[in-house]
């Protein structure tokens, strides 16, 4: 524990563990931070989209004559401008830059126009005539595999895939994992419960809508700015979709108005690049809120059949999970979400016999893809409710039941992966004590009958972080200050600050002596993206290693300058090097850098590249088919207690209090870490209670903030407590793990368990709207 003075000292220095204010505060709090919509270029054109009015139709042809004739129109692009062999996709290459040959969902981009003004561009889109042959649409994923179901993709089996996805017919991908012998284990269980759960499509709803701006230079090379979570994924997607060489496309980033998975893969970038290349001019296009709802992506609706068995003493024995994800029209991140959700289906419990399997169905709906939690909120909603049902049948307290089965030090994950640090039990203890769980639940149960009923629920989860390739470059500038370059896009969560803190700490510099470069595919080392809760852990490790390289070079040159061995030198706070045990008399980083530039060695540059290499599955333990992640990462954990108040006259649910404890490893910046947990809680409350994309036939019925309600200041909890459990991970940078997603995994489950505690009936379909809760209350009363 730091003393207050110690903490204050560390804050001023900006060291690891200090709540350094976000480095972009000056720009953001003065309204000067530039987001994509704030970018203007002299003489730029404005883009607009034509979206499909049909869920499924063949495109017989286009008549562009009227649109082209409109004064001010500079370029129009359609599927005719695309080569059929060019398709993009994170896992399965199945998606054209814009609809080609067919439209596969209402709202899909059919054509795009660049014109002198946005009004002209929009008017021109309305003058484009498309000859459609309307086809029967597949809207229900449960019917996707019926013999007579319409085919979303005629030649799905021919698509290239980056793993064994099993793509064919309307199966976008399939995955199966098993350990032990679940089929044989049911007989040895004393209690078995089985149920089917349904979850809905949730919109990411970054307050900033997506957009892009593309510039073409005289040689035809494109510079593309966009709302994104990875300049490198933007580059890969656009190049795949347009058959463009990566050397011909440079991707950069303005500030990002938040990303929750929606800005990781492509949205309008390919269409905007097509327009810019055709018009040979700069083109900017920013989606309206409605277009953003309809054409970007959303969280997967899921149907989850789950079966769990336990012994009389409360020991979990077996689990079967069958998962059906609605993937929408294109693969996008769906195969990843399916595989990850199945890998996480048991939650952080020891269950010896498990069979988890599922499919992603292609349907004629918008893409469903990555969204904070990446499939875990869906399976946790099912799993944690099922645990409460089991606890009830076994007459055990829900927390005691969980404590009996959770993973502890030395336990491995489903599939066999080692867990290097595990603070889960501490998390559970913390929320149990802080919420006064037993006393409060007993008091709620004994409360006199009233219209308002209180209930409390618990849920726990884990998250794995560490996916894919990362690099960092640390340069010592001539004056001894430092430039850090990682290619990681700060999407608002504060990764620039956290990475700068780690770099500063490694070199014993105050954080204001480190600048961080803006991600740029021309100049930054590759970084897969700001997604999967990975930046602090993966990029942090690269930063520490690259800074270590710089330290080595500084010491080598300082040794030459001071005529002593490098091993006898130490870094000193504030940017100098001196002899160990001899105070004073050192040389500053500026002197060393000057020596390097003018006398010996050349500029000091440290770099690091790496990719997480611990295998997800031990083939001796588990049988796996179609898991797209051979290596994932390290484990964070969480436990959460949520209190609800249910209005039994209306069914409306309110959340007065919530307690969340997360084992995130060492917190590099505690205020930012609790900010992630608090933000995830409220986003999870929206998922649990109000947020649901609704379709009217093939068309989205509520693509507006009027009709799609996210939590406001009114709905936020009266009390929300976020606790950090810092179990140092031996592999993490300064012991850090991850915090971006873990906070949302449990929310819907804990709220559902709390509502069940209040009204006595489990609810198996999200969101828990007033209507659904009231129906459950009325059904219970009828049976009494």
């Amino acid at each position, binding site marked *: 524990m730091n003393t207050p003075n110690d903490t204050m000292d560390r804050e001023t220095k900006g060291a690891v563990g200090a709540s350094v204010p976000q480095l972009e505060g000056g720009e953001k709090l003065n309204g000067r931070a530039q987001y994509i919509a*704030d970018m203007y270029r002299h003489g730029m054109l404005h883009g607009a989209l034509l979206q499909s009015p049909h869920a499924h139709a063949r495109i017989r042809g286009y008549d562009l004559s009227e649109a082209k004739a409109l004064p001010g129109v500079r370029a129009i692009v359609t599927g005719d401008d695309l080569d059929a062999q060019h398709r993009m996709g994170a896992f399965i290459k199945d998606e054209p830059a814009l609809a080609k040959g067919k439209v596969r969902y209402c709202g899909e981009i059919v054509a795009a126009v660049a014109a002198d003004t946005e*009004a002209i561009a929009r008017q021109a889109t309305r003058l484009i005539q498309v000859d459609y042959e309307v086809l029967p649409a597949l809207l229900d994923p449960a019917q996707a595999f019926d013999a007579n179901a319409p085919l979303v993709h005629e030649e799905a089996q021919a698509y290239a895939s980056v793993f064994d996805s099993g793509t064919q017919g309307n199966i976008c991908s399939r995955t199966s994992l098993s350990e032990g012998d679940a089929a044989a284990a049911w007989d040895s269980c004393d209690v078995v419960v089985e149920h089917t759960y349904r979850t809905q499509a949730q919109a990411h709803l*970054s307050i900033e809508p997506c957009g892009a701006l593309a510039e073409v230079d005289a040689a035809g090379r494109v510079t593309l700015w966009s709302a994104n979570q990875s300049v490198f994924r933007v580059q890969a997607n656009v190049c795949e979709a347009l058959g463009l060489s990566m050397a011909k496309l440079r991707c950069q980033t303005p500030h990002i*108005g938040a990303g929750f998975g929606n800005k990781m893969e492509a949205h309008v970038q390919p269409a905007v690049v097509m327009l810019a290349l055709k018009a040979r001019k700069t083109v900017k296009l920013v989606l309206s809120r409605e277009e953003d709802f309809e054409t970007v992506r959303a969280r997967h609706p899921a149907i989850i059949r789950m079966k769990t068995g336990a012994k009389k003493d409360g020991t979990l024995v077996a689990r079967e999970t069958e998962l059906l994800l609605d993937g929408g029209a294109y693969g996008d991140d769906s195969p990843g979400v399916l595989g990850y959700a199945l890998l996480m289906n048991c939650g952080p419990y020891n269950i010896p016999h498990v069979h988890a399997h599922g499919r992603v169905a292609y349907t004629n709906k918008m893409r469903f893809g990555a969204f904070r939690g990446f499939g875990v909120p869906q399976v946790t909603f099912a799993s944690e409710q099922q645990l409460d049902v089991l606890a009830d049948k076994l007459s055990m307290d829900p927390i005691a039941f969980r404590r009996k089965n959770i993973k502890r030090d030395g336990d491995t994950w489903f599939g066999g992966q080692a867990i290097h640090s595990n603070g889960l039990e501490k998390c559970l203890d913390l929320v149990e004590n802080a919420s006064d769980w037993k006393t409060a639940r007993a008091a709620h149960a004994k409360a006199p009958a009233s219209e308002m009923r209180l209930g409390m629920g618990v849920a726990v989860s884990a998250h794995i972080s560490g996916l894919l390739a990362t690099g960092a470059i640390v340069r010592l500038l001539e004056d001894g200050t430092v430039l850090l370059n990682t290619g990681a896009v700060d999407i608002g969560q504060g990764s620039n600050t956290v990475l700068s803190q780690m770099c500063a700490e490694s070199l014993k510099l105050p954080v204001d002596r480190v600048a961080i470069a803006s991600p740029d595919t021309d100049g930054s080392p590759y970084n897969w993206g700001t997604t999967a809760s990975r930046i602090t852990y993966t990029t942090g490790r690269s930063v520490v290693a690259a800074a270590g390289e710089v330290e080595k070079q500084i010491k080598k040159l300082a040794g030459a300058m001071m005529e002593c061995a490098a091993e006898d030198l130490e870094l000193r706070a504030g940017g100098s090097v001196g002899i160990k045990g001899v105070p004073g008399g050192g040389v500053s980083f500026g002197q060393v850098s000057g020596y390097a530039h003018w006398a010996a060695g050349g500029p000091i540059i440290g770099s690091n590249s790496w990719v997480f290499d611990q295998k997800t599955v031990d083939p001796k333990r588990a049988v796996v088919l179609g898991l797209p992640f051979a290596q994932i990462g390290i484990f964070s954990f969480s436990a959460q207690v949520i209190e609800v108040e249910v209005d039994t006259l209306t069914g409306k649910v309110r959340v007065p209090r919530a307690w969340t404890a997360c084992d995130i490893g060492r917190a590099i910046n505690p205020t930012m870490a609790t*900010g992630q947990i608090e933000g995830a809680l409220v*986003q999870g409350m929206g998922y649990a209670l109000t947020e649901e994309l609704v379709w009217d036939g093939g068309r989205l019925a509520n693509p507006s*903030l009027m009709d799609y309600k996210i939590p406001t200041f009114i709905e936020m*909890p009266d009390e929300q407590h976020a606790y950090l459990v810092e179990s140092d991970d031996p592999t993490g940078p300064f012991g850090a793990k991850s915090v971006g997603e873990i906070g949302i995994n449990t929310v819907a489950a804990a709220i559902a368990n709390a509502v069940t505690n209040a009204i006595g009936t489990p609810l198996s379909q999200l969101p828990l709207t007033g209507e659904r809760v009231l129906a459950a209350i009325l059904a219970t009363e009828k049976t009494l």
Partner: protein
Amino acid sequence: MMSANRQITLMVNGSASEAPAALHDTLLTVLRDQLQLTAAKRGCNQGVCGACTVVVDDRTVRACLSLAQNCEHASISTLEGLIEQVPMQALQRAFAKNGAFQCGFCTPGMLISAYALLKHNPEPDTSAVRKALSGNLCRCTGYTKIVTAVQEAAAALRAEVVTP
């Protein structure tokens, strides 16, 4: 639709600015596209998210719902014009210290609503803050740190008044 484009004069942040505006152009469009004042953001263009909140004649309004031509002769303040004000600086300091913003896209609107609140209520309790800011959506923070920051700024301003 293309009709009635005329030059209008807006009093923005204390000075008169001329800009062309069509009848249907909103204040937000003219502020952003003509005057390059981009602190006010377009989040929904429907008056729901509050990211475009500005002050017009001492009242907070949604710039996306206000027609520019109707704002002639009114006094308009955007965040760019309020950053020298003591209460705004107190809010900015408290937002920075408490982590009351993340992506920052809702922040200009949030700061303006908070500024308007503190102007008429120097000591808002939690529910007053929540009510006053309930028209400003944030998807990142979960709101808790914003409430803390606004109350902390209010306390700092009261202390300044008592001990100048």
